[in-house]
């Protein structure tokens, strides 16, 4: 196997490392970099628990060859909170609304929501549901998750 040298930005930091060519992004994050916030639910791109942001765009990391992040910027759930520990609006809103039950889909939901709010700061219910349609949840029935995204939008707006 020919090793690859991968250089990319991870949660705002420059990273350079060697990987084997068959490495999938989710395993690079979880096994090698010990960033276990991104979850594995299906390994088929079917459940969205593994969602990360590649140049700000949500993708399923479980079916993405790690080599594809070459030269790009990657954000995971661990990269959202500020250095001082302050959480983002969507993270606060999730807690306030009770939008997490078992929490396994939560990182995926939050990453997708983060990307949505970046492009559409006050989405309506249909837009929220559409943006989250690629992330499955078995616990919540989605209602409080949708509410949390709306709440986060309101929070961002009131902060100006």
């Amino acid at each position, binding site marked *: 196997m020919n090793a690859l040298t991968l250089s990319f930005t991870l949660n705002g930091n420059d990273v350079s490392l060697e990987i084997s060519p*068959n490495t999938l992004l989710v395993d690079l994050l979880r096994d090698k970099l010990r960033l276990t916030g991104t979850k594995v639910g299906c390994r088929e791109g079917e459940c969205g628990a593994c969602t990360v942001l590649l140049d700000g765009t949500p993708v399923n990391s479980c*079916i993405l060859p790690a080599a594809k992040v070459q030269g790009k910027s990657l954000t995971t759930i661990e990269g959202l909170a500020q250095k001082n520990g302050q959480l983002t609006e969507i993270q606060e809103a999730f807690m306030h609304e009770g939008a997490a039950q078992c929490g396994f889909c939560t990182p995926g939901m939050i990453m997708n929501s983060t990307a949505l709010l970046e492009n559409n700061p006050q989405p309506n219910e249909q837009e929220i549901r559409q943006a989250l349609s690629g992330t499955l949840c078995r616990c919540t029935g989605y209602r409080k998750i949708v509410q949390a995204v709306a709440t986060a939008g309101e929070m961002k707006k009131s902060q100006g």
Partner: protein
Amino acid sequence: MALTFKDLHWAKNIQVQQYLQPGTLEEALEILANFGGRARVIAGGTDVVPQLRRRNIEVEALVDVTGIPGLDGIDQDGENIALGGLVTHAQVASSDLIRKKALLLSEGAGSVGSPQIRNIATVAGNLISGQPAADTSIPLLALDATVTIAGRDGERKVPLTEFFLDKGKTVLDCTREILIRIQFKGLIENEGGCYLRLAKRKALTLPMLVLAAVVNADLGKGIINRAAIALGPVAPVPYRAANVEGFLKGAPISDETFAAAANMGMQECTPRDSCLRGSCDYRQEMSKVFIKRGLSRAIAQIGS
């Protein structure tokens, strides 16, 4: 049907010895040639990676073509629209141009998988999957699209009607060739289109039936000039309902026409019994419903 080892035991990883990221088309084609069939193209990877994990396909190397410049644009030249080989489903779904000129394709592209999948999966990849109900294959077939395939020997253009060979198989050899362009004519003034999808839930699911229709009609005279109807899975490949199209040429715009076309279409379609996605009986009945709906909605779209 006896179960094999890989039906019962799943791997976490994929088995690939090399992952190459060429910077030009020529480089990519050369690498493929050098591997002599042991490497294949990967674009978004949303089809290829799960297939590798399931051990349905085996390769020594993957040649990632997403670094090749100039293939990710949507271009317009008069009525002609061209999608680069790396254009994603998300791009097509949100493109103002395509929503205006070929809404059926935007809707088809917007129905694939999920937002995360659509963000990196390419329309070219959807065609190459060779699935009989692929959500962009069907509209593109109704739009009489042509694809341009690049190989070591140069480029060749293949009409989509000749592109699909069998379920999962197309004329493109993914170990030697790269699909670089998809071209079609946008809808013109007296044309309307429609895309319909039948599935068991509203996202992240393969369809039971997909239909796309393009109808060219003279509303004043109340006559259908021409219709293109593509649907699947009613055959091993995405299907153009040729008999129905022949019947519709010059037919009056009326419920009777639609009903007759639908009945005729149902006879033409031979879907399999699918354990998970509908019996033959049901899918034939739905072909009838969809042909009727597809025609009437496409005509309703004319002029809007």
